[in-house]
């Protein structure tokens, strides 16, 4: 089985991917704005300040929008097609592109509460933050 495209980790993103590898969803946080942002950057994209730290997120969020890929975006996605690609608004504010794991695509809707689940990429290193409906049983 082909693995999904692996993120090319850099100095901005290393703490984030180190976090997911330990089953922690971590977000960069701007002390001046008192708010989290995503993706990680050298400067806060809101106030452009550089007084930043990493904080753990709750892992809970809401589906802002989604689509169902009816074709695989590359060989790695063949086996799971059709699959749900979604924008999830985290409780802390930032919006993530991710997948919502469901048995059938029609089980996803805008406004749905979702929680993070961690899925190893298969490269023995990277772990992706995916989401599942909050009420769903353990997968």
């Amino acid at each position, binding site marked *: 089985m082909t693995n999904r495209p692996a993120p090319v980790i850099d100095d901005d993103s290393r703490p984030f991917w180190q976090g997911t590898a330990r089953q922690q969803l971590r977000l960069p946080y701007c002390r001046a704005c008192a708010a989290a942002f995503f993706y990680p950057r050298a400067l806060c994209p809101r106030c452009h300040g550089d007084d930043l730290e990493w904080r753990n997120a709750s892992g809970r969020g809401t589906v802002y929008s989604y689509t169902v890929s009816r074709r695989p975006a*590359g060989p790695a996605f063949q086996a799971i097609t059709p699959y749900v690609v979604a924008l999830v608004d985290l409780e802390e504010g930032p919006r993530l*592109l991710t997948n919502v794991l469901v048995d059938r695509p029609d089980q996803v809707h805008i406004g749905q509460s979702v929680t993070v689940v961690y899925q190893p990429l298969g490269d023995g290193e990277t772990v992706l933050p995916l989401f599942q409906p909050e009420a769903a049983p353990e997968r």
Partner: protein
Amino acid sequence: MTREAVIVGVADTPLQNGVLRDGGSVLQVQARAAKAALDEAGLSMAEVDGLLSAGTWGVPGPGSLMTITLGEYLGIRPRFTDSTNIGGAAFEAHLAHAALAIERGYCDVALICYGSTQRSESSRTLGGRAPTLTMQYESPFGMLMPIGGYAMAAMRHMHDYGTTGEQLAEVAVAARAWASLNPAATRREPISVDDVLASPMVSDPLHKLDACLVTDGGGAVVMTSAERARSLNSKPIYVRGFGESHTHWTIAQMPDLTLTTAADTGRRAMSMAGISHDDVDVAQIYASFTITVLLTLEALGFCPRGGAGEFVANGRLAPGGDFPINTNGGGLSCAHPGMYGLYLLVEAVRQLRGECGPRQVRDARIALVNGTGGTLSSTATCVLSRD
């Protein structure tokens, strides 16, 4: 006296079934289009002192420094050069930049070129690259590029405003009706709303027929000053207003999924031109997907936010409707060579010159052109006038 920038030549490349009728490399395509546009203007390549281009060819490689490669191929040593690439909207931005350069006397004759052989080379591959930098937060999740981002915008629009698949389909049906009047269009057989809805779903809620074509193509636009144009035979088309902007590359960074920067670029362009919405006789609006048109009509202020679904209903955008757009068939039915923005300008100019035969919008004086690039990432708006 202020120098005014005008368009004096346009050309597009003949296609057959979406591929280059006369064949050619991506550089040949642009050279031929450039020559055709210059011939129409009555100018020679030797007089070109401004060169502008954007594209996806030759990257990495000679296309990485695009106008340098193109200038070398064409034998041009420009004093104004611009490889601004903001996706499909790049050419509307080029038009603005060239207008500023001409008005300021920074150059006298500007040539904007585009070419693509993506269809004949089957080379449209937006995926498959290692997800570096910002793409590491997107590529691992398998969003189809670029349709997935547009699909999520459409999904949100439906959720917020009750927009329907039928309303989206109206955009595709109108585009095809215009294409049926254009012998140069790639897809000319009429389609219905039901045909669009029955076409395969690609990325919910967008079907195959909600998406643009994948074709080859190329074209060129030649600009100069109004003063210079007086000694030329071609009828000059005035560049009256423009605006450009962008907000995001990755879709998660789009501030509001149903509002594009056309809200800003349209307002600035129309204000610069001193026109109101009612003054626009014909519009060319980038149709990468049907949803792009709905979002753009709202952002430009032709209808209220959330109102575009109703606005386009009952054939309003189609021939005979009271809001003619994409009169050559647009990206959905005429051609879509990877980046379509140059074609928007070509068709707007032809409408303003009154050259469009059966698809001519009667007495078209003012055209609005809006390009959208990336994944709703960038927009650029231009207002053109025949006098």
